[in-house]
């Protein structure tokens, strides 16, 4: 079992004929993900990957023709907000946006638009979702994890892979891994994901990987204290980051003294969350 994506996922790939889109579609198919359609405006009627996936001109046409229930977005940053609106307006309830570099003002409009509808966005600037053995939606390498009972949620990409792999090496698997992304304004928060893991009968323990910037980890700590019965182990990246500098991710910045790793670690520890000193310590804290 899992959250958000599984073997019932019927996936649409927006931007399927682009370099990233086609490359990752191939990997998602190879993993066993049910990729049923792609969209590239102007390329409707074509088939990609040896006739495995039909391409449509718009999300609505793809949706009507194939009954997709999830969309993953690989279109460039300048078109990505529009791609999210297109999926939302076609009524797709779950949208995963991989694209990095979407302007923040675009994302504020997107988020406020989606909040008025019953639509979940994961990302942007995220590696996507992986439910080991069932579905891989996005760019998380499939072979670095295995099915298990640990829910993983993270703002990062490769740091998450590192943790999934370290878990696999000691025989621990994931129920679902959720990359919520490194942008300051995103679709799904730590709290949203923690709530889903708490409700998922096949998730027994949770790993939360945070980083500097914003107050999502602090809010997560409050939520954990009030709502979670399952144990949470955390790691927060960026203790050595200088203030006022954006550490790669648009959202990873300490501003006016707010968003420091120290504050986040303190908040998490104060509610009984075990915080790893470094990523390799996480598996032993889950034992």
């Amino acid at each position, binding site marked *: 079992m899992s959250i958000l994506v599984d073997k019932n996922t019927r996936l649409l790939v927006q931007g399927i004929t682009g370099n990233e889109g086609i490359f990752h579609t191939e990997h998602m198919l190879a993993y066993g993900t049910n990729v049923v359609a792609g969209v590239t405006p102007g390329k409707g009627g074509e088939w990609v990957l040896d006739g495995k996936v039909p391409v449509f001109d718009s999300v609505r046409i793809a949706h009507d023709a194939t009954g997709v229930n999830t969309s993953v977005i690989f279109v460039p940053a300048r078109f990505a907000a529009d791609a999210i609106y297109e999926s939302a307006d076609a009524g797709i309830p779950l949208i995963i946006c991989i694209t990095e570099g979407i302007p*923040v*003002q675009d994302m504020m409009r997107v988020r406020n638009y989606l909040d008025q509808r019953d639509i979940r966005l994961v990302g942007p600037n995220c590696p996507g979702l992986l439910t080991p053995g069932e579905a891989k939606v996005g760019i998380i390498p499939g072979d670095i994890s295995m099915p298990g009972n640990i829910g993983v949620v993270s703002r990062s990409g490769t740091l998450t892979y590192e943790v999934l792999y370290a878990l696999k090496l000691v025989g621990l698997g994931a129920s679902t891994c959720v990359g919520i992304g490194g942008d300051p*304004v995103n679709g799904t928060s730590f709290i949203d994901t923690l709530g889903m893991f708490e409700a998922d009968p096949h998730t027994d323990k949770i790993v939360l990987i945070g980083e500097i910037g914003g107050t999502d980890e602090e809010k997560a700590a409050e939520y954990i204290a009030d709502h979670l019965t399952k144990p949470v182990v955390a790691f927060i990246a960026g203790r050595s980051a200088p203030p006022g500098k954006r*550490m790669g991710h648009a959202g990873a910045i300490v501003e006016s003294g707010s968003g420091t790793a120290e504050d986040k670690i303190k908040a998490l520890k104060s509610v009984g969350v075990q915080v790893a000193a470094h990523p390799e310590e996480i598996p032993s804290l889950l034992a």
Partner: protein
Amino acid sequence: MKLHEYQSKQIFSNYGIPIPSGRVATNAADVKRIAEELGRPVVIKSQVLVGGRGKAGGIRLAKSPQEAEDLATQILGMEIKGLPVHKILVDEAAKIETEIYLGITNDRSARKPVMMASSAGGVEIEQVAVDTPEKIVKVHIDPLLGLRDYQSRDIAAGIDLPREHWRLFGQIGRGLWKAYLSSDASLAEINPLVITSQNQLLAVDGKMVLDDNAIFRHPDLAEMRDVDVEPESETEARKYSLSFIKLDGYIGCMVNGAGLAMATMDIIKLNGGEPANFLDIGGGASSEKVAAALRIILSDSNVKAVLFNIFGGITRGDEVARGILAALNEVKTEVPMVIRLVGTNAEEGRQILSEANMITAETLVDAAKKAIKAAQGENSA
């Protein structure tokens, strides 16, 4: 990307916000000429992208064109917090009765823009937030609707602005919203917005920070970037789309992924070392990119060792290893290199790298310790 005061105020003025008459100069003779043209006392304002210009002596009042020229000569030779002064804004001096703060910024936690105002203008708003938070009035703006006129009035009332100014204040609020929106700013602030002795509202100082992710739709604003504010290595890194930040330590870091790069810096520090940089080489890690990154890291003479921390994911370990090998053949160096390669095809990757003269490590902790040791060896040699 930060804009200078004169650039920010020019944008504000384009949207109907009243600013003082003034112009920018790069030499003292021009400063004198502008002061003569204005024909009144002027303020000489250094244009550098740091706070505290006034305290550092970078903002001075000149009663005559000659005084303006003398002060400009002094200021143009100055460095303020390490930044050289290349430009001076010469503004007509305003007689100030009241100073107000007015700004719009992104509230990431509310996922909306927020307009803030305070009757305690002229001071940094962060300081006001600490000292007298009750003096800050905030309204969140629906990003799908934009600023409503009543919100500006609520703010005006909230800071006890006399009613006679509400209409113009509303116009300034609208102008600031348009400036923020049309420039894709993450911050647009007027500090101070003053009431002059002639009872006029005037934006005496201004600041804008633009969203780097949105610069692609503002080629005109992109040209305003002042590279003086960042180390040369960061400017160079931007050319190769590398995410690089220079730090003060001695262990260079080459990592794929921002989160992993931060974690790598943290673990170096945890083990008693000091990272020399943050660097995310991204997913692909082609040899060209690795070589460029390596040259940038090694351009810092403090660097005594370089730690590669690479996770082979979609980009497999052997492909990354070939990239690193090619880069090492191109960039010759004596600086010791430590590599930790894990994930997909890591074993093949390690074999490829065995012909390079690199110290290998299994774990992150092990890699950090070996890099610190290698750096110390270099020190004592």
